[in-house]
């Protein structure tokens, strides 16, 4: 399991700010296992004279709840009442604050210990200050609700009143500062509402799209319908005559981050006006070399490639072909899944101001401001340090806003109107057609079962998108995909199809697709072996042990996997028997991703032979020793399960014709609605003695195969393509 090794560069500085506020700047160096470079966590705490405590929230808030969760960790160890705490969003400044990104469900594992140490260090200094002031041993003092108390004399003092003394106390060694025992937690583990909820329900301007610096202009753009196509020529004489239009600018700078994003932007005094005016633009694009890509073409290539040998090896053990030749039973099946868009409800947008001195200021809904800073510097040839990035609340991330294209485009637009802030906003079709798509994929699965019903050999020929003999971004799969590492004879091979589409990470990337393939196929193997999937998993997992991870990943603990499988079977009353009621089906799925272990059972009903209704989803999850904010955790898990249901049943493939994506809005790329929501998503926790990890992503993958397996149970039909349909 990953541990966060804190090294000797940690320090804590207390100082008196103006107005007699006490500030703590805690800097903790730490390195996540597998990462070469140590990173710093800066935790900033300010105690005002009225004893309110302001804590900076350093990471992007995309709805995953970190703006509430990270300050909870600090407040817990600082030992203040949650009602005393005010939370402020930090700007991006990774030299000061350490890693600031929302991705990979990494915020909890990266910050669990350092954030607590920062709070505990500040508390220790306040206790030492009180001990000095009262001339009593620090060990005779207790804290609570922002006060230091001395039981023997009945004295108590607020943290704020200790500020002048505390600012002069030597900082403790943060690696040795005692942390609370979980049984003493008063904030961690309690249901805490989202810090921004009151502002959200009042409609306050929180999001990127709401940014409105003084004098702001608006921009809409026309992009090449074929991704990677370039601008040949354009005629803006008509558009310049339109009401409100102030400038038209061609964007042909560089590659953002890989893939050209040529565009023509129309800038003016109203987005509605410039968006309407852009219809008057006459643009010619160069699309040669990119306009041959199509969904039909990919499907034909995949079919041909599946019939041939893989062109690259991903993982090989023993001799899979020989083992299959002597297996008592061989099961084979082809699985496939489509390209998907992220479809964040807040379309991509960003606001930027190119200052007179050449400095750039952003108001950005970004999941990864640090990468954006680097990309912008590269494309525009400016110094990274010349940028200020204010992070706004984000109307959905799901991985889309890990990419910086929308910020680079905005920077190019801002450069054209120096001195005026400008907001570039994609319309829904721009957003749908200029995504970094979850790549489609095809898998030919083959398994060998021995006479005793044990899975003994496995082959996967994975046809994916690639260039130069390697998968493109987010088109890879793990060489350690279970059950590969525990079987004697395995071959995971790959073949590649080229594409012009930009690809990227969609919530639980790779796992959201590979879980469907592997757990769907293993359900077929279980059936052939005369058992059910939970039992086949138990047999295949074997004794508790840690399977070695890929670089930068965490080991797979077979005992924790077994723990959630057993828990969900008990929770749901799994019997392994086929459903006795016509039209009813029950299916199981397990998946390990993003350090979390999840097993899920789906109950569904088929009506009229083809309408699939999810009745209930049962979830058992193991994310370690502590659920930090159970109110948000439950919500994230329910959302992830419903998101998985959407991918399984509702979302339609992103398709391409002549190089261009054809989907344009929620009519042809429907999102899940309230009428398609399951009646219940029931959750149980398996608490284990492991460092707490995130859950925005790992809850999602198992529900997709569980649906496929439940449909098989209800109808006898095996659905091996996403989205699943009985029609």
């Amino acid at each position, binding site marked *: 399991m990953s541990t966060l090794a804190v090294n000797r560069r940690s320090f804590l500085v207390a100082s008196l700010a103006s107005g007699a506020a006490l500030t703590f700047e805690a800097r903790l160096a730490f390195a996540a296992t597998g990462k070469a470079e140590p990173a710093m966590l800066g935790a900033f705490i300010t105690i005002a004279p009225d004893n309110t405590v302001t804590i900076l929230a350093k990471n992007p808030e995309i709805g995953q709840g970190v703006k509430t969760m990270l300050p909870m960790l600090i407040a817990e160890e600082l030992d203040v009442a949650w009602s005393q705490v005010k939370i402020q969003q930090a700007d991006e400044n990774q030299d000061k604050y350490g890693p600031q990104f929302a991705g990979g469900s990494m915020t909890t594992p990266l910050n669990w210990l350092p954030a607590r140490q920062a709070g505990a260090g500040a508390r220790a200094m306040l206790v030492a200050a009180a001990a000095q002031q009262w001339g009593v041993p620090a060990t005779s003092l207790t804290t609570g609700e922002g006060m230091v108390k001395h039981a023997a004399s009945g004295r108590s003092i607020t943290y704020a009143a200790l500020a002048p003394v505390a600012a002069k106390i030597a900082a403790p060694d943060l690696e040795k500062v005692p942390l609370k025992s979980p049984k003493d937690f008063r904030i961690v583990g309690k249901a805490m509402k989202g810090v921004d909820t009151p502002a959200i329900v009042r409609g*306050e301007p929180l999001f990127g799209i709401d940014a409105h610096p003084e004098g702001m202009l608006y921009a809409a753009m026309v992009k090449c319908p074929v991704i990677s196509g370039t601008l040949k020529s354009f005629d803006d004489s008509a558009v310049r005559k339109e009401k409100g239009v102030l400038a038209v600018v061609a964007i042909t700078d560089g590659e953002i981050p890989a893939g050209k994003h040529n565009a023509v932007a129309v800038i003016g005094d109203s987005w509605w006006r410039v968006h309407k005016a852009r219809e008057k633009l006459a643009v010619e694009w160069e699309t040669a070399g990119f306009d041959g890509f199509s969904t039909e073409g990919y499907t034909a290539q995949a079919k041909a490639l599946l019939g041939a040998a893989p062109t690259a090896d991903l993982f090989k053990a023993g001799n899979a072909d020989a083992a299959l030749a002597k297996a008592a039973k061989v099961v084979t099946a082809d699985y496939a899944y489509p390209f998907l868009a992220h479809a964040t409800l807040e379309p991509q947008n960003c606001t930027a101001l190119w200052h007179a001195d050449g400095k750039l200021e952003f108001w950005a809904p970004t999941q990864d401001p640090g990468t954006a800073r680097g990309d912008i510097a590269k494309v525009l040839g400016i110094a990274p340090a010349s940028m200020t990035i204010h992070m706004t609340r984000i109307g959905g*991330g799901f991985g889309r806003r890990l990419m910086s294209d929308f910020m680079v485009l905005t920077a190019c637009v801002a450069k054209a109107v120096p001195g005026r802030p400008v907001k570039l906003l994609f319309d829904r079709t721009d957003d749908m057609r200029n995504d970094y798509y979850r790549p489609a994929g095809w898998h030919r699965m083959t398994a060998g079962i021995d006479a005793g019903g044990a899975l003994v050999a496995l082959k996967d020929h994975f046809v994916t998108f690639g260039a130069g003999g390697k998968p493109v971004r987010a088109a890879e799969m793990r060489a350690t995909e279970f059950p590969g590492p525990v079987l004697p004879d395995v071959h995971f091979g790959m073949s590649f199809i080229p594409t012009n589409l930009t690809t990227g990470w969609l919530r639980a990337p790779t796992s959201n697709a590979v879980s469907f393939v592997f757990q769907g196929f293993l359900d077929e193997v279980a059936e052939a072996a005369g058992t059910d999937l939970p039992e086949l998993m138990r047999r295949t997992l074997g004794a508790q042990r840690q399977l070695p991870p890929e670089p930068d990943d965490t080991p797979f603990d077979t005992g924790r996997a077994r723990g959630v499988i057993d828990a969900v079977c008990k929770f749901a009353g799994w019997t392994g028997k086929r459903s006795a009621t016509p039209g009813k089906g029950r299916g199981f799925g397990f998946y390990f991703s993003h350090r979390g272990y999840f097993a899920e059972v789906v109950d569904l009903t088929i009506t009229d032979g083809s309408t699939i209704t999810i009745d209930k989803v049962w979830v058992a999850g193991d994310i370690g020793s502590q659920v930090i904010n159970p109110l948000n955790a439950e919500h994230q898990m329910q959302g992830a399960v419903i998101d998985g249901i959407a991918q399984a049943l509702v979302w339609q493939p992103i398709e391409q014709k002549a190089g261009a994506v054809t989907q344009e809005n929620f009519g042809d790329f429907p999102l899940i609605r309230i009428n398609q929501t399951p009646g219940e998503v029931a959750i149980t926790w398996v608490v284990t003695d492991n460092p707490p990890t995130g859950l925005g992503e790992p809850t999602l993958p198992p529900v997709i195969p569980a649906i496929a397996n439940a449909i098989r149970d209800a109808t006898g039909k095996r659905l091996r393509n996403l989205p699943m349909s009985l029609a």
Partner: protein
Amino acid sequence: MAISLTVNRKPRTVDVEPDKPLLWVLREDLGMPGTKFGCGAGLCGACTVILNGEAVRSCQTPLADAAGKQIVTIEGVAALPVGAKVVEAWTALDVPQCGYCQAGQIMSATALLTATPKPSADEVTAGMAGNICRCATYLRIQKAIAEASKAIAGAAA
């Protein structure tokens, strides 16, 4: 030509193109960005406002059609007795995740509970099916509507 309308009980006059959608008039001309742009096609419900008592998609409502009408937006919904109960329930249950769609959800829920104070499960589904939540907070939305419905009944008793 200047067009007058009432927004959250305040008379407002705007002098922009009459075909400009109410959504953009609110966001750009009236400085009220609480109402959100999601799809521009009436498919997602993020831009829902209440116009003369009915939930409408403001991205599909030209300013001319709002002339002389009473508009309620998320910024003013809590001033309505039903809206106040909806906002309270939304807060108590911590419904938002990213929060982007919630203005529209709250407006649709307020219109639903104003017309049907005790909606059946099917009526809730029908009343809210036009509002997409990409984070899928639907289970809490259902609960919050049930809570608000109870609170409205309690206030009326």
